[in-house]
Structures are given as C-alpha cells and as structure tokens.
C-alpha cells in the first residue's frame, strides 16, 4: 500500500503490519523487540527524563527531517542536562493519506540518527487520525538518561562565568522558513539538526556550570530563561554572535532577528573562567563545534535580564520572544 489509511490505526492486523514492516524493520533492537505493553530497561542510580513532540512543517527540510529532529531534540535535551542519553521512546501520529514511502524515509532517518547518537528506541506507538485531523505526521520522543554526578543546572551559574555557543545561530530556523509554504525564498542555509551528546561528552568537565540547547525561541529566549532561573544577568556581545551570512541575509530580507531563531544542533554553555579555554578548545576539536565561540558573560547586576553590547558600545535588552516570531514587513 502506498498511503496510510485509517485501518493502519485500528489496532488490528494492518496496524501490526505497519509496525513490523516499517518500525521494527528499521529500529529493531532487543528492547523494542520485547513487544510488550512496556519495555523493560536496565536501570541506573540517577535518571533524567525528557519529552518533546515534533510538529514541524515541512516534514523534510534542508539538513534533516522530522524524524532526525525528533531524535536530536530529545537526545540533546538529555545531554545538555548532563545526562548520558540512554533510551528513547517513539510515538507517531499519522494523518490518513500520508505516504508510506515518506514514513519509511522518516523511520530510516530516526534509525540512523539513533545509531549515530548511540541511543536506541526502546518502545513505540502509532496512531492514525483522519485526513485533516493532523498535519501529516507528529512525533513524540521521550528520553531517559543516566547521570553519574551532577553539576550542571541554572543553580550552578555564577557571575563571571562565560557564555559559549558551539556554532552559528539561527540556521535551523532559516532553513525551515525557506521550505515553508507562502514564504517563497531560496536559501543556502542548511539546518544544523544534529545529536550533540558526543560533542558534549568531549568537553563536559567540572567548570561547565550549565548547558542548554537553544531550540524554539532561540538563543535570546533560552538565555532569558537561564538569567531568570539563576538570578543573574547575561551580557552578550553582538559582534561575537556567530552568524552564517545566509542567515544574516535572510534575516534582513524577512525582518527577523537571529537571536530568536531555532537551533537544533547547537549548545549554549555557561562555564567558569578557569574552564572556558579548555571547553572552547574541546568544542572546536569536534566536527559539530568548529565554530564554537564565547559570546558573552554572566554578571550580577540587572538579575533576570539579558543584555547585548552593540558594536558601537551601546547596551540594549534582549527580551524573551513575545508571541509568534512573525516576519515583519512594514
């Protein structure tokens, strides 16, 4: 069959066939193959858990697809929490009429990304809804990670710490916009979507006080969250923000601010002055962190605020994203 039909979601034979011929086929492992209501996994002393649904449109984009994104998003949330990502669950909601060929492409991408990250999918679920009741495909991944010793979190952030980012900002956001209907433009920008756990492993050391992946809401919103949670201010230097020229051009064209564009393969790191050099050189030694750079510092005054020093020396606030990040026109 070419397309998803409602019967694929009935819980009956066709559902089974779909699971076996698409999901099992590509994701097979001893956990998933238990095929029980719940999957037994060996535990560890401390665990981290995270969940995210992925509703991205378009489903396939320059640099990835919703499946890759669903694995990276959750792996990265675990990794930035200082956890070793260990297990992922995978729950898919399919719209009637979705091409099974596309589904398989996505599942293969999930399989490949899960392999690359070294994090297996250990249980899953598939639902089908009528045409018009969903937008093609939604994916939820929930991740479990194990933690040895914990030293990252907003509470560890200290004034004087440095703020680092592992590379250019806004690439994912622009690549998605370019593929979106109604906003017709071509861009050379490719989504940065990638699993960051190995990169993070490479530089994770005492002195790394906090990490975040600046996804939806972008660097601006993520740093605002941290500034509030840690009761500090963060001062960015505009000149130091790494920006792909294509992102700069697209932002100019559409009136967008890269500080609020989503990233899916970048990690923000807050590190102590003692650790910053080591972290930076480790990051740059990794293929996903070549353009890593310090973009700012943590300070005490104006707690809860993110500030930005302009190239001419003025300072302004970088607020949270308010509502939709609409391309402005006029």
């Amino acid at each position, binding site marked *: 069959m070419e397309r998803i039909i409602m019967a694929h979601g009935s819980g009956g034979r066709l559902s089974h066939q779909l699971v076996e011929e698409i999901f099992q086929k590509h994701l097979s492992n001893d956990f998933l193959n238990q095929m029980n209501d719940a999957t037994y996994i060996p535990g560890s002393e401390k665990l981290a858990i995270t969940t995210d649904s992925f509703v991205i449109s378009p489903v396939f984009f320059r640099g990835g697809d919703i499946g890759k994104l669903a694995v990276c998003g959750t792996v990265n949330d675990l990794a930035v929490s200082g956890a070793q990502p260990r297990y992922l669950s995978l729950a898919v909601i399919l719209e009637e009429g979705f091409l099974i060929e596309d589904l398989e492409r996505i599942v293969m991408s999930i399989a490949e990304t899960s392999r690359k990250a070294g994090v297996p999918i250990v249980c899953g679920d598939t639902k089908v809804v009528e045409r018009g009741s969903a937008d093609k495909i939604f994916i939820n991944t929930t991740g479990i990670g194990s933690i040895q010793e914990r030293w990252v979190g907003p509470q560890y952030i200290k004034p004087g710490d440095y703020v680092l980012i592992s590379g250019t900002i806004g690439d994912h956001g622009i690549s998605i916009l*370019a593929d979106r209907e109604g906003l*017709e*433009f*071509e*861009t*050379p*920008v490719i989504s940065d979507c990638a699993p960051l756990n190995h990169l993070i492993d490479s530089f994770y050391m005492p002195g790394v006080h906090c990490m975040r992946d600046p996804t939806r809401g972008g660097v601006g919103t993520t740093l605002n969250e941290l500034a509030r949670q840690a009761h500090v201010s963060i001062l960015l230097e505009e000149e130091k923000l*790494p*920006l792909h*020229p*294509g992102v*700069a*051009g*697209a932002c*100019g*064209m559409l*009136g967008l601010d890269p500080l609020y564009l989503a990233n899916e393969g970048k990690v923000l790191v807050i590190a102590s002055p003692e650790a910053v050099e080591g972290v930076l050189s480790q990051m740059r030694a990794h293929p996903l962190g070549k*353009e890593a*750079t310090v973009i700012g510092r943590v300070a005490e005054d104006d707690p809860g605020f993110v500030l930005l020093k302009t190239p001419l020396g003025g300072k302004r606030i970088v607020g949270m994203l308010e509502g939709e990040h609409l391309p*402005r*026109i*006029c």
Partner: protein
Amino acid sequence: MCIAIPARVVSIDEMLAKVDMMGNERIVGTHLVPEVQVGDYVLVHAGFAIEIVDQQYAKETEELLIEEANAREEL
C-alpha cells in the same frame, strides 16, 4: 520594518525579478522600478523593489558584508 540591505537582481521575467541577498533568493515585483536591469541592486520592501540603489553604495555595502562574513568564517 523596512529592509535596509541591498538585493542584487539575478534575473528578470516580465514584471518579476529574482533577487539575491547573501545567497538567499527571492522573487520580487519590479512594477515600481521598470527600468531595473540584471546586476542592479534594489531596495526591497513588502515583496517589491521600490528603488534602485545607487551603484557605488550598493557594491561597497555588499563587499563589506561579504568581507565580514569571511572574517567570521575564518574565526
């Protein structure tokens, strides 16, 4: 907001031009600048080229941007 970076006209088809902004390409209307030619830099607003940018300024601006971009790349 009115956009302040110049876009270079890559091709023209009747009243529509493809313009390039640092690698990003887009179709804009040329109804307000019928005299525009391929290679010109235009100011784009709300999907239309509203004015042709003075040649000399435009070039300088783009060179500056590219230079800066290269500088970043080399970081």
